[in-house]
């Protein structure tokens, strides 16, 4: 069953486009990573799915309903980010009680134990927490509520390294015993790629890829070698990125759709896999020089 179905979904803000022609479906009980560069439209897309924003075109369906103003979608989904609004003066223990009332699947014991594990007091009010602790709290709420659709928008902002590791581990453990549909956006794909099943890659408001993580890992291949040999071999191949090195060597990222026979013809070239994280950087790179160019142009360099 598809939990999310988008057909040509679109969200424009005063002329600027947040999301354009989004066309994708998310199956039930999967963990999907929503990846993209800054300002690509990830948050716009996720808020549209949560029913926070109203699409300006196309169709967005969650659990078969339009999410905007749908009580069914609101009851069965949860959108959590750094700015999720909870009363700052309510003690956390009471916040849990409110969630228990609203979410029938709420696991009070899990919430309490995770909170204790992360050394946050039930008596503390949310306003007194540091940014990382606040996001830890939101993460705990997202796990304990066990919503059929849980959306985490950069859940680990401000979390320290060991809390991040623990949070992702807790997410995976809980997902395995209580499968549900989870969307996570993050700028640290390397930290979550083991967790994810699918990846949605967004660039400039458009969904440019939607495929299993394993396929993204095999999506491209890096070919290094002397410039002439590399250039010769990559004719008729789909080049994604290209890096010249000072020594006359070149590294080229090509789409991994060549045959074994193709590969055999590449004598003396080095083939290496490209991580999912690097691949998504290459796929969304603007055509421009590196940051060094900004400094090299300047007189003092």
């Amino acid at each position, binding site marked *: 069953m598809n939990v999310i179905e988008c057909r040509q979904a679109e969200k424009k803000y005063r002329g600027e486009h947040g999301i354009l022609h989004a066309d994708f479906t998310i199956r039930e009980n999967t963990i999907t990573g929503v990846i993209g560069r800054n300002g690509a439209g990830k948050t716009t897309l996720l808020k549209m799915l949560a029913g*926070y924003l109203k699409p300006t075109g196309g169709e967005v369906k969650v659990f078969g309903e339009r999410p905007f103003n749908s*009580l069914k979608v609101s009851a069965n989904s949860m959108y959590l980010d750094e700015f*999720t609004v909870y*009363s700052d*003066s309510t003690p956390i223990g009471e916040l849990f009680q409110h969630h228990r009332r*609203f979410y029938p699947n709420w696991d009070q014991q899990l919430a309490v134990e995770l909170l204790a594990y992360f050394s946050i007091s039930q008596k503390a009010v949310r306003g007194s927490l540091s940014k990382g602790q606040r996001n830890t709290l939101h993460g705990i709420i997202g796990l304990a509520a066990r919503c059929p659709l849980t959306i985490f928008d950069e859940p680990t902002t401000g979390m320290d390294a060991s809390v991040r590791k623990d949070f992702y581990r807790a997410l995976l453990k809980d997902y395995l015993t209580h499968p549900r549909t989870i969307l996570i956006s993050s700028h640290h794909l390397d930290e979550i790629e083991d967790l994810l099943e699918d990846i949605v890659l967004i660039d400039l408001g458009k969904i440019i890829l939607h495929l299993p993580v394993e396929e993204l890992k095999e999506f491209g291949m890096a070919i290094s070698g002397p410039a002439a040999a590399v250039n010769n071999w990559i004719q008729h191949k789909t080049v994604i990125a290209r890096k010249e090195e000072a020594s006359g060597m070149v590294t080229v990222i090509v789409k991994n759709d060549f045959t074994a026979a193709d590969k055999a013809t590449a004598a003396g070239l080095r083939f290496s896999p490209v991580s999912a994280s690097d691949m998504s950087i290459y796929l969304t790179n603007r055509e421009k020089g590196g940051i060094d160019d900004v400094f090299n142009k300047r007189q003092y360099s």
Partner: protein
Amino acid sequence: MSLTNVSTANIIKKQYIHKMTSYRDAWKSLIITQLIALAISSFSTGGGTTSGDFYSINVTNYSVDVVFFFTVFWAFIASFLVTTNSYTYEDFSYVSNRTTSAVSAILFVASITTIAAIFTMLSSYFIFMVMYLTQDVNILYGSNTIGDFSEILSSFAAVWGYLLLASSVGYIIGALVQISRIFSLVIPVLIFLPGFMNVQVPILTDVVTFFTTETSVMMFTMKVLITAILLFMLGWLLSAKKEVRTW
């Protein structure tokens, strides 16, 4: 994971409980308001001295008018604040649509207004008791302080009516301000203009006359109830298309 089925009525009930328990600021400010107003009331607010050849009467009126006035103001502010984004957005952090959010907010406002009316009535007894116990003088009962049950009921209805009116006005103004900031400048000016200057805003005068000239408490309460319901519904309609957390 199986989907949860929810009814609008059920969510409204849950949101109402949530608001009643977690909007601490509303409750706290009600208590602070009443205490400040009581403190101010405890200074005498009028009176005079009459003396003949052999006697001198010192008349002091203790009034709950100050408490009433403070509470009306509080009701206006409190329900204005309930319409602000941070409160609305919190509903959507739990389970909500625009209807449940607005209806539960209206029920909450109506509830705190009723409780505030009860507090205000109790204040009059409180002042009476304090004066009775501390002042070694004869107390001249006034018709607007402590009366029999029907008098209490009708003054309660009047107090409650004004409070509800204030809170429904606060609610609609809050909803307008959420739509455009310009209203936060225009509305207060339009309200205070007549008081300070000779400029008459025709409709406003009619509105004031509509309520203040009513002599029957029953009719007044009816007028207030209908007006409040209309204002609340208008406020609800105004917020029906709003997006949540565009930041």
